Each structure stands twice: as structure tokens, then as C-alpha cells.
């Protein structure tokens, strides 16, 4: 078995498991498989995630969970062992080896010295059996330092290393390629080069320059993470440069090419009414009808359900519904603004009421469809939920999203 241990002054700590996590969460170090993140987790997240971290550069993935057998409370000396464990996790054919390591890693993958190496080795000597005879191969790795090191601890050889490459060679692992966003895209660039024709050579060269510049990678990463507002700001900032304006033009063409059609998803809804308030809580006494755009009957309105559906499984639909008791855009803000629940084919928004819609009450559903989810601040919702359809502020907000590859649909309902 290939096992990696972190040297600490309290004895070796085994790295039990490394698992990929959803990139929207921060990387964590957990104790023994439990739901208990150790306080050094933020440091591990920084060690993993671009642009500071070194693990995402190696694996292309931004969030991991590392389970360890005992607490590690401070310092960065766990980094060398953690890096080796990440490499080993990607090389399942590695032979059996017990590795005990301590060292800090910088962004150039040099191993930097750490404190208390002598105490850590002493703690390891106490924790290990006195002889390693008949045990599987083992090795101890510590940073190169001025102080003399023992040749072995209980029969296990001690090596001083100054780079990650040296450490990996000693434990029999291949040194992984460091990838970055630019390199991730290069196969595509090569593919396009192969298909190039004389008439498009100029365009391909421009695309190649664009890709080498890394702008597409950064913008694509923002889009993938749903950071649409950040993407918009990045494109606007790039527009300030004459050279980069060409890049943003190409990227916007790409976004427009991938934008879903306005008819690729559909919005409808149900109106649920009853004779009186009490009947609203009895499903047998409620009546459901197609929502329409207005209601002028005498019944009490119990609930409204709206849906946005698509048959395109790649399309992502998000949106919000706002309730305006005294009319669209009236009052300080929509009474209840809600996101919809996600389903395989789209989203559903259900709204029940504490203050039943009376004459003049309005609902506005805003649906945004595109190639990915949207996370973080979304300032356009204020105008989209409160401004009349076709108004300057509504159209401006919709155009912002259109320029980012999203289509906006709005559905209005009111009580006469």
C-alpha cells in the first residue's frame, strides 16, 4: 500500500484519503472521515486553489477534501506530504511504500525548511517499531538544511530534499505536468490549427494569440463558476485596451453562438384559487387553472405556480419571482422574491401568500437561460423584477445578460 504520513512533533499523522469536492466549496482537511474541518483548512484551500495554490495547477481541479488520522493545528510543514499524496492519488500503479514527510512548498515547487525537524524525527522514532525488517519499503523526507540529519530512523532512511521533483523521484512517483488554464486549452488550439485553411489562417493566428494570452481561459473559468458579474466586469475592463478589444469581440461572438434561442424554453403557470381563506388549506376545495396574465374573478387566490421547462438538458435555467402587493414596482421592493426549485427539465416557482393578492397586485417571473448556472451578486434582478416590460431599465438589464450569452424571459400577471 502506498501511504503518506505527515511528520509532526506529536508523531506521524496519516493522510487517509484525498477526494475531489464540488469546486464551489473550499478545500478542507477533515479529521478521520468525520464532519469536522480542522482550523488549518483555509491554508489547505490556499495550497490547492489557483492562483496561489499548486494542486489545481497540477490536477486542474479546484477543491479537495483531505482526511487525516489526527489533528494538525498549525504551520505549513504538512504541504510536502500533502503534495506527494495528491500526486500518488493520480498514479494508482505506484508500488507499496510508507512515506513520512515534512516540508513547506513554494510556488516554484521548491521544498522550504520547517521548524522542529529534530523533534518530529524523535516523535517518529517513538511511534515506529524498532526495526523495519520484513516491513514494506519506507522513506523519510525532510527539507535540506544546515543541521546534520540522522541517516535513518529505526531502519528507515532519511533524505533531505530541496525540490518536489527530488522527493517524487525518491518515492517512485512520476513528476506530473504543471498545467494552467492556457495549457488546458492548447489541444483545442492545435486541433483548430490542423483544420486551418489558407483563407482563415489570419483568423486562426489571432485565435492562437488570444488563447496564448489566456484571456479565454480566464473568462471561460468565470463562466464555468457562474461568476457572471465578474465576467461582465472583466470583459468591460478588457474593452479598454485596443489589443484586448479584439479578444473580447471574439469571446462575445462565442457567447452569442452558444446562446440558447428564445423559443428553446417555455414558461407557463397555474393559478390556484378557492372560495374563501379556509378553503385554501383544503386541496379538495381548491381550483387550479392556467395562470394567464390577469385575474378578475371573486375568489381568494391561494397560490401561484410558474414553470420554465426545456428539453435541452445542457441548458441551465435560473430565475426569480417577485410579488408586488400594490402593483409592479410599487413599494420599496418585491414582497417575496424567490428562486425556483430545480428539476430535470427546468425550474418551478411556487408562491403562497400571507397577504392575498387583492386588486392591483402583481407578480413578475424573470427566467434567465444559458449555458451555465449563475452565482454571486446579480444586480440586474432589481430592474428585471420591478420595471415594466419594454422599459429602458428592463431592456438595459436584459441586454447586459444577452451580451453574456443568456436569454431573458419575463412573465407578468396581475389581479384586476
Amino acid at each position: 500500500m502506498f501511504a503518506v504520513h505527515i511528520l509532526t512533533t506529536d508523531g506521524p499523522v496519516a493522510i487517509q484519503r484525498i477526494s475531489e469536492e464540488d469546486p464551489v466549496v473550499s478545500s478542507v482537511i477533515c479529521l478521520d472521515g468525520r464532519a469536522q474541518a480542522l482550523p488549518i483548512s483555509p491554508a489547505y484551500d490556499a495550497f490547492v486553489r489557483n492562483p496561489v495554490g499548486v494542486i489545481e495547477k497540477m490536477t486542474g481541479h479546484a477543491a479537495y477534501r483531505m482526511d487525516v488520522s489526527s489533528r494538525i493545528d498549525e504551520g505549513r510543514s504538512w504541504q510536502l506530504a500533502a503534495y506527494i499524496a495528491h500526486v500518488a492519488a493520480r498514479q494508482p500503479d505506484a508500488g507499496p511504500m510508507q512515506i513520512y514527510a515534512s516540508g513547506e512548498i513554494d510556488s516554484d515547487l521548491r521544498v522550504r525548511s520547517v521548524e522542529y525537524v529534530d523533534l518530529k524525527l524523535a516523535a517518529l522514532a517513538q511511534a515506529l517499531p524498532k526495526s523495519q525488517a520484513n516491513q514494506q519499503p519506507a522513506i523519510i523526507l525532510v527539507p535540506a538544511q544546515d543541521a546534520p540529519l540522522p541517516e535513518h530512523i529505526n531502519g528507515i532512511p532519511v533524505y533531505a530534499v530541496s525540490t518536489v521533483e527530488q522527493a517524487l523521484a525518491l518515492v517512485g512517483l512520476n513528476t506530473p505536468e504543471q498545467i494552467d488554464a492556457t495549457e488546458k486549452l492548447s489541444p483545442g488550439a492545435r486541433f483548430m490549427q490542423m483544420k486551418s485553411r489558407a483563407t482563415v489562417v489570419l483568423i486562426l493566428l489571432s485565435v492562437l494569440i488570444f488563447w496564448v494570452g489566456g484571456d479565454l481561459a480566464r473568462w471561460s473559468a468565470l463562466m464555468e463558476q457562474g461568476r457572471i458579474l465578474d465576467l461582465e466586469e472583466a470583459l468591460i475592463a478588457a474593452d479598454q485596451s485596443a489589443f484586448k478589444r479584439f479578444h473580447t469581440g471574439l469571446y462575445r461572438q462565442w457567447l452569442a453562438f452558444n446562446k440558447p434561442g428564445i423559443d428553446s424554453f417555455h414558461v407557463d403557470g397555474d393559478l390556484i384559487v378557492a372560495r374563501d381563506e379556509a378553503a385554501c388549506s383544503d386541496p379538495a376545495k381548491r381550483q387550479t387553472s392556467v395562470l394567464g396574465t390577469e385575474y378578475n374573478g371573486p375568489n381568494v387566490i391561494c397560490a401561484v405556480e410558474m414553470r420554465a421547462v426545456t428539453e435541452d438538458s445542457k441548458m441551465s435555467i435560473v430565475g426569480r419571482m417577485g410579488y408586488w402587493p400594490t402593483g409592479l414596482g410599487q413599494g420599496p421592493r418585491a414582497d417575496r422574491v424567490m428562486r425556483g426549485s430545480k428539476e430535470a427539465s427546468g425550474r418551478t416557482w411556487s408562491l403562497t401568500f400571507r397577504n392575498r393578492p387583492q386588486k392591483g397586485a402583481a407578480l413578475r417571473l424573470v427566467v434567465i437561460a444559458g449555458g451555465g448556472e449563475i452565482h454571486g451578486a446579480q444586480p440586474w434582478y432589481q430592474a428585471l423584477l420591478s420595471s415594466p416590460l419594454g422599459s429602458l431599465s428592463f431592456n438595459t438589464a436584459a441586454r447586459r445578460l444577452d451580451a453574456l450569452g443568456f436569454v431573458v424571459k419575463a412573465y407578468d400577471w396581475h389581479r384586476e
Partner: protein
Amino acid sequence: MPTDDPIRNLALAAIDADRQIKTFLQPGVKRENIAISTLFRFANDPGYELPADLAQHLENDPIAQANLMRIISNAALEHIPMLAAAASDTVTRRETDKTVLILTPSRADPAQIYLTIEMKDPEAARPSQIFVSAAEGQWHKLQLAPFVGVRTQTILESEHEVIVALSHPEAVVYFR
């Protein structure tokens, strides 16, 4: 006001005494069994949890619930109101103009959930705990991990009472 302030403690004791007298003097009125000072301690002392009997009583006592909500909401940095009833699915995201609260299942262990809170305003005060008022009248609180930038993340078992409560649209969340 610090939680060990003697004047505050005296004021709370006076409020407790006043309520007890009023309760005893009103025949037929249901007696309130949770003292204001206990609710205040629950709201302000991160290490204090309501004993099981009081927690159960709180579930069935709308007066005590209202008192606790008043104490918590008065000093809350922010709150996320209940969502409208969703047609399907559990709630995984709550958002206001100031904050986003997200529940993300762990890929490594789907029985564990990441609770992430992000402040939209980098200058906003960072909460140290959240209170969740569940639909059934229960109150739960959770000490948050220190913020890193605008974000804090805690990992919890999916059956943790806070995760269960946050999964329902009726829950109300207070940041303190």
C-alpha cells in the same frame, strides 16, 4: 452590552420577576416556563444550549418563541426570511441583498453537507453564529468558523438539526 454585565443581569432578573408575578395574578393564563434571562443567555452565550426540557417547551410555547425571536432579531446583523413553499426539492440556497447561504453535499461523503455563507459586501460585519427558526417552532444555533475574506464554511452531517431546518423553505435564518 457584555453578557456578564451586572446591570444587565439585574434588569433581566427584574423582567423575570415581573413576568412571574403577572402570570400568577392572572388565573387561567398558561404559565410561561422559560425565563427571559434563559432565552437571553441562549441568544447571547455561544456555548449555552437550552436543556432538553426547555427546548421541548419552547417548541410548544408561542409566547416564548416570540420572546426569543425578539431577542435574537433585535441584535441580528441580517436575517433571511422564509421562502415561499417550493413544489419539490429541498432548499439548497438562500440569498438576500447582503448574503448568500448555500448547502452543498460533499462528493467524498454525501452524508455530509458544506454550509457556506458569503457576505456580498466586503465591508459588512461578519457574523459569528446563526440562529435558525424551524417551521415546527424549534430554534437551533450554530457557531460559524472564522471568515476567510467574505466567506465562511462549515461541514456538518446531513442529519444535523441546523442542516435539516435549513433544508425547509419555512426556516428563518438570523445572523449574529
